[in-house]
């Protein structure tokens, strides 16, 4: 299988403080990776660096995505190239309806690919289909992006956007945080429905419970800015039983 993403010796800082201290990670097309680790280990930093958040600075290393130097691409171009982040804390954008927001996003991607903007009928049909896929209430679609949404609605909206944009590599950053068990199941089902043989996911989570629904092929433990252990799905169970302390002690 082809390498979709290759992270080599990645170091990154925020406000001058080094958070990532040499990450190496390879994701092949079709794989689901889980990245687990205690709070403060650098999980969210890794996802933010991948999508080009301007607050983070890469000081060393490289990221190759689809054979391209990812670090040279603007955040919007990374998105157009199929990189998607389901945010841990999706922001509210008052006054901008989800419909208008998604139309701008979908058409920006089409423009990048040299296609004409989607016509309104076609677009609304796509909205309906994708909404059904993730059980997003039609009322929500007419509201402003994330404004006044519950935690569960925000996460469902993230997965809806993921469905609309059909990413090649999706990063789910603590998508389970703040969700009750029903919301978690709906979100996870949405993610599973969107899975194709040629798309990959990185699931970042603190707990194992999301991984009961989204089955990873490979599990990594991130600790203190480095990946300290990589194994198969059985690692999830081991973490569940033993917690993170043994990792901390070993490193």
């Amino acid at each position, binding site marked *: 299988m082809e390498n979709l993403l290759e992270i080599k010796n990645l170091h990154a800082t925020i406000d001058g403080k080094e958070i990532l201290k040499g990450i190496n990670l390879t994701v092949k097309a079709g794989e689901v990776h889980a990245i687990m680790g205690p709070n403060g280990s650098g999980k969210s930093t890794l996802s933010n660096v991948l*999508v*080009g*958040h*301007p*607050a983070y600075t890469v000081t060393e290393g490289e990221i190759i995505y689809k054979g391209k130097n990812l670090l040279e691409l*603007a*955040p*919007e171009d*990374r*998105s*157009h190239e199929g990189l*998607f*982040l389901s*945010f841990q804390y*999706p*922001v*509210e*954008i*008052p*006054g*901008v*309806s989800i419909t*208008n*927001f*998604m139309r*701008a*996003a979908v058409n*920006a*991607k089409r423009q*990048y690919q040299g296609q004409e903007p989607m016509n309104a009928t076609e677009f609304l049909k796509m909205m309906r289909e994708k909404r059904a896929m993730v059980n997003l209430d039609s009322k929500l679609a007419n509201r*402003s992006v994330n404004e006044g949404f519950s935690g569960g609605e925000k996460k469902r909206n993230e997965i809806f*956007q993921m469905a609309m*944009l059909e990413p090649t590599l999706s990063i789910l950053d603590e998508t389970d945080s703040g969700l009750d068990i029903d919301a978690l199941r709906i979100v996870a089902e949405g993610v599973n429905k969107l899975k194709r043989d040629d798309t990959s996911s990185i699931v970042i989570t603190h707990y194992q419970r999301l991984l009961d629904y989204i089955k990873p092929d490979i599990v990594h433990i991130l600790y203190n800015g480095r990946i300290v252990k990589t194994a198969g799905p059985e690692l999830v169970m081991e973490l569940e039983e033993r917690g993170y302390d043994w990792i901390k002690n070993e490193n």
Partner: protein
Amino acid sequence: MKKDNILKKLANKAYEFGFVSKIKTEIIEQGLNEDIIRLISKKKNEPEWLLEFRLESYRYWQTLEMPEWAHLSIPPIDYQAISYYADPLKKNKENKNKEIDPELMKTFEKLGIPLEERLALSGTAVDAVMDSVSVKTTFKEELREKGIIFCSMSEAVQEYPDLVRKHLGSVVNYRDNFFAALNSAVFSDGSFVYIPKGVRCPMELSTYFRINAANTGQFERTLIVADDDSYVSYLEGCTAPMRDENQLHAAIVEIVVNDNAEVKYSTVQNWYPGDAEGKGGVYNFVTKRGDCRGRGSKLSWTQVETGSAITWKYPSCILRGDNSQGEFYSVALTNNYQQADTGTKMIHLGKNTRSTIISKGISAGKSQNSYRGLVRVSKNADGARNYSQCDSLLLGSECGAHTFPYMDIHNNSAVIEHEATTSKISEEQLFYCNQRGIGTEEAIGLIVNGYAKEVLNKLPMEFAIEAQKLLSVSLEGAVG
């Protein structure tokens, strides 16, 4: 967060209408005195009473000082260095008719305002004013069949002197303020509208103001009279060339609304705002007021203000008739070094009068944007209601947003509500859009238009689309 790095680079925004047209224009000498006023009046072949009106206004103006209460820093203006009359129409010596230079037609076409009726925007009649003169008014005859008068102010003075004399200055007295006195002394052209009893105007009426000549001021005057049970929607647009010198635009708009009549007045103001360093641009000092004289009358002001170096403007409603209603919907955007002090006055005199104020300020660059509004409820105005909402949106940290609400309530039955918010476009919002593939400028346009939606929705369809584009263009370069 490096918010400023993203938001502060306020580069040249693209001003689409900054071209100058080569049109042979007759410009009178610079300066202001009684002879100049007599000359303007003579050129327009005005009756004696109007000349007297001008001279009286001029004499009063001389006793006044520039108002300084606004949150604006206005450089001194040399009123003797301005030419008060510029006529782009050429006279044909043989038949004495004025001719329209084809270049002039082309100019308006370029501005998206075709003056040939067959090319017109559907359902819109236009009065096109360049510099001091109304160039052409479309669909005049069709409207006349319904008894509607839509023509230039100069023509109205000749053709309908009684109507003009009865209403001119009846809403905005020449003694009202410094710029009103100046305008009353030197006003050149503008539009006149009369909607007779019971007539619903079948078209949008609009005036497009264009400044072209250099070193001139534009002092137009618009008068709209809506008789009992009538309705009209009126639109106003304006642009000017890019020049390093400032140009003065001091207009008066007067509206009379009789029993159960309704007037909607919409403005998309896009005068040249000056360059990124604050050089040049139009000084837009305007007095707009409507008198809801009739019972159950209604006046609605909608304005989208993106242009001008300095804006000083308070479209107001005098709610004199019982059950009359006033509305003010405003989006004012300032970028670079622009300054705006704008808002409204709602004067409740009649019983059960209602007013609504929705003001959305958007400040970017190093601009200063102020909302100034007065709600006055007089002693006899039982059951008056007002709802005001003043929102400010800031882009970057070098601009200013200010709110000056005044309330002057003399009747205990009044219900007055006021809400105000200030928000910023955050880097997290922009990044969220970026991650979804939406570039930063487009994201700002999306957010700004979303913020202004409530007001934009009040504009007639074609104008709303124009205004949306304008808001995005005016912020182009607002991020680096």
